[in-house]
């Protein structure tokens, strides 16, 4: 209680608490590994050729071994030497000429693999490469949408909480309107408006998901606006904008950071559902959502590997990210430790 702590110390303390949290550090490691994977995929180092059809359609994973050959048909293959028809076949004289012409063009022997480490999809594309590329897109969409939503929520919350009055009432009205419309309908409406594409998904989720952040940040700004340090800043002539964003914002940044990561997880899951409904990531790109959408019909044929891979990648990342979020919140706000 003696002297007010500087902001750098607050973050330093938080970092120290985070380092002491074993679960938090382990999940940080997993998330960092994913970040490396995403960076490599974005740079084209891995999974660049996910669209190439490298294996036979629906090639099973390596462990399961190649698929059994189809049972021979009912028709018996005729045996014995071929009958010589050259005396009645009118085209017979030209066969030699055609063969010589055809020999000028070389056939490329397409070697399609029978198995892949994690199998192939219906078109023979490598599921592992798809999952890596899908990770890049899904995480990118989730993170960008969360950034958009947090930015909108923070800006509106700051304005509403700091100024109050007419502006605050107007923003409360906007909040009430957005929360009164069912989320699905709002998302569908924005999706119908903007068409489909990665940028669209980011916009849709960002424009519909800001309300929770607004609510929290508005309360924080209301609380901080009347604190002594803000009044002191006002006394030395700091403008409203400076007080809001240079003085208060750093002091509520931990709330924003935690909201950002909570929203990221939510939006990654929302993207999956949007893509399944055909409102999300376009068909020439791959995300966890489009993989799961394909997996439904594949499962009926017993091809479980694409479903399993997409689920595994998603579960691993989302679990690690959620645990990291929890650890982050505990580290930044020790009062809440272990609550949720």
């Amino acid at each position, binding site marked *: 209680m003696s002297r007010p702590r500087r902001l750098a110390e607050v973050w330093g303390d938080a970092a120290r608490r985070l380092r002491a949290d074993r679960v938090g550090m382990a999940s940080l490691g997993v998330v960092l590994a994913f970040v490396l994977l995403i960076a490599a995929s974005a740079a084209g180092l891995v999974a660049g050729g996910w669209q190439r059809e490298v294996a036979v359609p629906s090639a099973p994973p390596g462990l399961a071994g190649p698929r059994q050959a189809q049972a021979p048909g009912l028709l018996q293959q005729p045996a014995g030497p071929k009958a010589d028809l050259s005396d009645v076949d009118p085209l017979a004289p030209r066969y030699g000429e055609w063969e010589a012409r055809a020999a000028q063009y070389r056939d490329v022997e397409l070697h399609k693999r029978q198995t892949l480490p994690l199998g192939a999809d219906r078109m023979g594309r490598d599921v592992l490469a798809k999952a890596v590329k899908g990770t890049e897109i899904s995480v990118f969409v989730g993170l960008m949408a969360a950034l958009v939503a947090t930015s909108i929520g923070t800006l509106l919350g700051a304005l509403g909480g700091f100024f109050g009055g007419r502006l605050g009432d107007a923003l409360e*009205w*906007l909040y*009430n*309107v*957005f*929360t*009164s*419309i*069912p989320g*699905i*309908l709002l998302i*569908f*409406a*924005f*999706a*119908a*408006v*903007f068409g489909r594409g990665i940028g669209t998904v980011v916009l849709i989720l960002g424009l519909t998901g800001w309300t929770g952040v607004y609510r929290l940040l508005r309360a924080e700004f209301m609380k901080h606006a009347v604190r002594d340090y803000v009044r002191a800043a006002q006394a030395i002539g700091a403008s409203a904008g400076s007080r809001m964003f240079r003085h208060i914002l750093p002091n509520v940044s931990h709330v924003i950071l935690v909201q950002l990561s909570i929203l990221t*997880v939510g939006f990654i*899951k929302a993207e*999956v*559902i949007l893509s*399944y*409904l055909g409102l999300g990531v376009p068909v020439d790109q791959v995300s*966890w*959502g489009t993989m*799961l959408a394909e*997996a*439904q019909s594949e*499962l*009926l044929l017993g091809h479980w590997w694409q*479903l399993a891979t997409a*689920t595994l990648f*998603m*579960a*691993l*990342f*989302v*679990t690690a990210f*959620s*645990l990291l979020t929890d650890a982050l919140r505990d580290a930044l706000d020790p009062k809440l430790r*272990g*609550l*949720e």
Partner: protein
Amino acid sequence: MTAYLLRRLWQMLPTLAGVVLLVFVLFKAFGGDPAEILGGLNATPQQIESIRQQLGLDRPWWVQLWIFVQQIASFDWGRSWATGEPVAQLFATRLPATLTVMLPILVLDTLLALPLALAVAAMRGSLTDRLVMVVTTVALSISFLVYIIVGQYLFAFRLGWFPVQGWSDSLWTNLAVYAPLPVLLAVLVGLAPQTRLYRSFFLDEIGQDYVRTARAKGLSEPVVLLRHVLRNAMVPILTNIGLALPGIFVGSFLIEVFFSIPGLGREVLLAVNRSDYPVIQAVTVYVALLTMAVNLVVDLLYKWADPRVELK
């Protein structure tokens, strides 16, 4: 109390106006042209023009907005542009199916999550507590889509315990035959986040002084938890249930699409794809009204759960 109610009802008007305006602007200004969608690919320009006239799309936007405002005020929603079915009838026939699935989900979720969360909160920090938290974290990280796809494949297609999909005209057949699998899957999915949330509410209360007092005066642990903690945690719990309530009237479109349940959620998805404006408008206003009504009822329930709450 009456003054409070009147004021709350009065405050709903601007919100409702905003909802109507937002949806109108979104679909009018940017949505697909309903006349072209309805006319199909082979429609001639004359046909499209006549559909436009029929729907009133050729009139200025403020006339169209005024027509919708009149419809809202008179509770006469007109007919669906796509099928010609009166919107009121559409609601009357689709809502029962949605409620048949959604109501059991909400009730079961709450009834299962509350005791589970209370039990886990009472054992805070124990191995069971930590195990439950890990299991729920992992369960939460898997997409709802995966649960439905795998559940339908395993329990219906492979094991044959339930029909893969379908619906009948009899409420009891629906409840006994067609609803169980979607309900089971949705409850499974909902249980993890609900348990975590309720656990945090209970932990908030268990740390309070009155709990220590209750224990100090020799009350048994069940009494402390069930009579003191549960009652005090009722306010956030009610808020949470209140937040979920409007959703059960819209239904989960994912469940309805996967299990071929003729409910409202599927209808909304269809309406958006067809730019069927009367249906979209009706659903939006209906859910907005419902949300506001539920919020009001929840606020009134606070008073019942916690007499210290002042309604102002």
